[in-house]
């Protein structure tokens, strides 16, 4: 058992933000997230946006059927879906990264986007990163070979994606294992 004095010296202790995290995951909190986790987070976000667009389309069609009966229901055009998908995804990621630092997919996978100082992204940076990610999704592949798990977007915009399972974003996020 760690004594209070040892605990105060930081021996075998964790911060308050670790309390809600399972013991197995505490050690790697704050480290750079790997490709698989980030890919799954992005996939979840894209799927969520796709579902959202589908819901919007269904809603529009239902409203048309209600107010203008007899209108033929038509499938949306691919180009329209792509354009609106880009717009929605960019907007969604911008707001998510500039506020909590993570989207729904990132929350599910336990990752967070921060700047190089471990702070929340500013809105312009968040917007740029969202647009870059939507326009150049293959850039995430660089995280596979990057020594520090950085995507092209991370390299260009100096952002970092870290493991962070905590519910609330600390002011500064640091790695427990390397600190």
């Amino acid at each position: 058992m760690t004594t209070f004095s040892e605990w105060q010296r930081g021996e075998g202790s964790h911060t308050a933000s670790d309390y809600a995290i399972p013991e197995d995951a505490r050690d790697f909190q704050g480290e750079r997230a790997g490709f698989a986790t980030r890919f799954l987070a992005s996939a979840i976000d894209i799927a969520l946006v796709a579902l959202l667009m589908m819901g919007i389309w269904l809603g529009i069609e239902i409203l048309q059927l209600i107010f203008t009966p007899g209108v033929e229901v038509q499938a949306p055009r691919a180009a329209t879906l792509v354009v609106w998908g880009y717009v929605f995804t960019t907007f969604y990621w911008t707001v998510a990264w500039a506020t909590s630092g993570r989207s729904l997919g990132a929350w599910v996978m336990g990752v967070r986007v921060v700047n190089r100082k471990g702070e929340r992204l500013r809105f312009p940076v968040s917007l740029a990163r969202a647009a870059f990610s939507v326009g150049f999704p293959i850039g995430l592949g660089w995280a596979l070979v990057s020594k520090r798990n950085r995507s092209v977007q991370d390299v260009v915009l100096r952002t970092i994606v870290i493991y962070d399972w905590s519910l609330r974003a600390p002011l500064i996020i640091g790695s427990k294992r390397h600190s």
Partner: protein
Amino acid sequence: MIRGRGLGSVCEDQPVDSDDARQEVILVVRPIPQDPVEGLRGIFAAVGSVMGSAMESAATTAMDAVATVAGPPTSAVLDRVVPGVTDAVIQRIDITGLVLGSVDLRAIVMKALDSLDLTRIVLERVDLRAVVEAALDSIDVTEVVLQRVDLVAVVDAVLDQIDLTALVEERVDIDALVATVDLEPVIDRLPIVEIAEYVIEQTDLPAIIRQSTGGVASDAIDAVRLRSYATDIATARIVDRLLPRRGRKLDAPGEPESLSESETVTESETVVTESETVPKGTS
């Protein structure tokens, strides 16, 4: 005539001259032995006694010699003359100077001291309480102690000899003492939040809360996250094996490594290997 000799007594067994109606009695006065006076007075008394005995012995010897030569009639004359002469001689002799010049007083005193138990004499004859009280009344004991006594050494010696902890436990009512303590300043100095965090961590309260309130969804999310993390490590390991390098630098943001723009990692830097990073639940 009846002539007696002896130590302060009249001897009646001497020849009697029947022709002479007069009887002459010679009384020789000798000091009655007394118990020696103890102490310094005793010493001087002893010295005086010795001197007196010596003078008396000399006078007696001289009188005997004259009586033997001149016969009994002369003895009566001597009895009358000698005491006066002796007194005159004594008055004209500085006996004190004679004693001081001729007698080894030191040897006499030392012998007397050896024969005396001074301690017992003092205890029996001296009112020690009165002496001590008189001495204490005449001096400022506090000032003497402060000036002459090494109080630190005395206290240290005393503390070395006693078990202070046991003494306090035995003699001091600690509960009563603590009851008088104002605890609020003490509590103000305590890191209450840190203590609470310490207790929470040591009792693993979060785990208890998770187990009691967590549902299937949170468990599933934790499992997915852990599995995903393990996949990250495995994928990185495969890629690192294909590339000529040893591992990845997964430092946290805010640290010097994060602020650098270089992708290169020196050999001295810490690398995260699979054995270090794979969580317990996913290995």
